[in-house]
């Protein structure tokens, strides 16, 4: 593996065929998790995958479509078109630099524009193989039972494993009595004043370790299969 922290000479010598890139988010995560939770998780996953699979790791994008968290402190967001343009420019840069297998791991569930952008790029660029993976889908859903989607058992567990010094006291969670499509109509804090959707008290570091390891394995397996990479 080479990364943006290796010398350019080393990167050229290794002639990476594949690039790994994480898209994070900086947004409220309830009273107990850092606002950089999604950023930290996706950066950790892409790093570990790159370490095991090889390839070229580029820096994570810290921000994305977090306007779904309203005006809560510590929330930064990009508009959909902005995020789309960042992705296009980053991918184009990698292709121009000679890498045309690209794995984008999306760490924030609200980045719905990504599937359209990636699909379009894949269709337009004939020598590009691009794979979009959702961090949430890489996680083994059978391990958590809290119907959570934000700052619940899954994310709390991962942070306890990856970043425990920055996890604060947990409170009981909430699952709003509406479907997830309501996030198209209201912000999450409007639906859940605590800013949580799930139950953080069900989380543990041990669960986080297992989720992380299985997510990395699943990511590697998908990359090898979908991009025909070994």
């Amino acid at each position, binding site marked *: 593996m080479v990364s*943006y*922290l290796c*010398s*350019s000479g080393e990167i050229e010598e290794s002639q990476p065929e594949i690039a790994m890139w994480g898209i994070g988010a900086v947004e409220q995560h*309830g009273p107990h998790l850092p*606002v950089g939770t999604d*950023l930290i998780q996706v950066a950790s996953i892409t790093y570990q995958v790159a370490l095991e699979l090889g390839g070229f790791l580029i*820096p994570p994008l810290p921000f994305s479509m977090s306007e779904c968290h309203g005006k809560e402190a510590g929330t930064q967001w990009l508009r959909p078109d*902005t995020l789309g343009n960042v992705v296009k420019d*980053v991918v184009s840069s990698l292709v121009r630099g000679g890498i045309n297998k690209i794995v984008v791991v999306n760490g924030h569930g609200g980045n719905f524009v990504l599937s359209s952008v990636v699909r379009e790029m894949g269709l337009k660029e004939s020598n590009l193989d691009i794979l979009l993976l959702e961090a949430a889908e890489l996680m083994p859903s059978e391990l958590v039972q809290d119907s959570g989607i934000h700052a619940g058992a899954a994310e709390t567990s991962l942070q306890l494993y990856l970043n425990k010094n920055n996890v604060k006291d947990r409170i009981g969670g909430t699952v709003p009595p509406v479907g997830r499509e309501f996030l198209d109509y209201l912000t999450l804090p409007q639906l859940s004043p605590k800013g949580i959707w799930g139950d953080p008290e069900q989380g543990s570091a041990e669960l986080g370790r297992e989720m992380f390891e299985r997510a990395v394995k699943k990511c590697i397996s998908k990359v090898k299969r979908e991009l025909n990479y070994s």
Partner: protein
Amino acid sequence: MPTFQNTTIEIRDAGPKMALWGIGSTENHGETLPPGTDILLLEGILNEVRRHTGESSYIVPTMPFGTSYERFGTIGTINLQYPTLKQVIRDVVESLYDQKIREVAIINGHGSIGGSKVTCEGNEIVKTAVRQLNYDHPNFQAIWVQPFSEAGEELCKEFSSQQQDIIEIAILKHLLSTDLFSRKEPESDGGFISFPFLGLDDRRILSESSVDIDVGRRAVSIVGKKTANYINETLAKLREIKN
């Protein structure tokens, strides 16, 4: 000083009125330096700046990509087209505005000793983006600064021209010799994208360089302080003018 490693409650309670935001780049830096050189330098400088800008300033995560047209197409270079970078700046700063942060200082890369303080070197669009934000939001203040340009005079007094030529490498070497970006025992409280949660502990970079680490230590301290002084004084002046 709150960062992305704090919770929303902690950030809210800190009540930041000002944000510091570094805009770096990922670009081919020749044979021996990493494409992330500017990110590392910027975050090292930011770590110094924040010592002098007040406890309640909020550190926005560093933007790792900028415009790098001249190196576009080389391995390791990520180029954002200027409209894209302008949009990113606009969106992120407007999200800070939404949270009632009314001042933001954008630290644009690192600039150069003797460089202009009026136009941006690298990420040129930052100047335009800042200007537009100030027009669009009259009760808000955005400024930009390039650290080496700001600290140029003092760096020239302190270091010989030979030392000035290798100042970037010296600072880099110094930063990598500290625990600033260490995953296990970060010297900072986190909040930088360079190392802590990545577990990247690659000290191979520059390990064979004979560059003097102490030059780097002294340089980054000077640059940080001068940049912070510029930020504090400029914002104070602007408050005075607007009142």
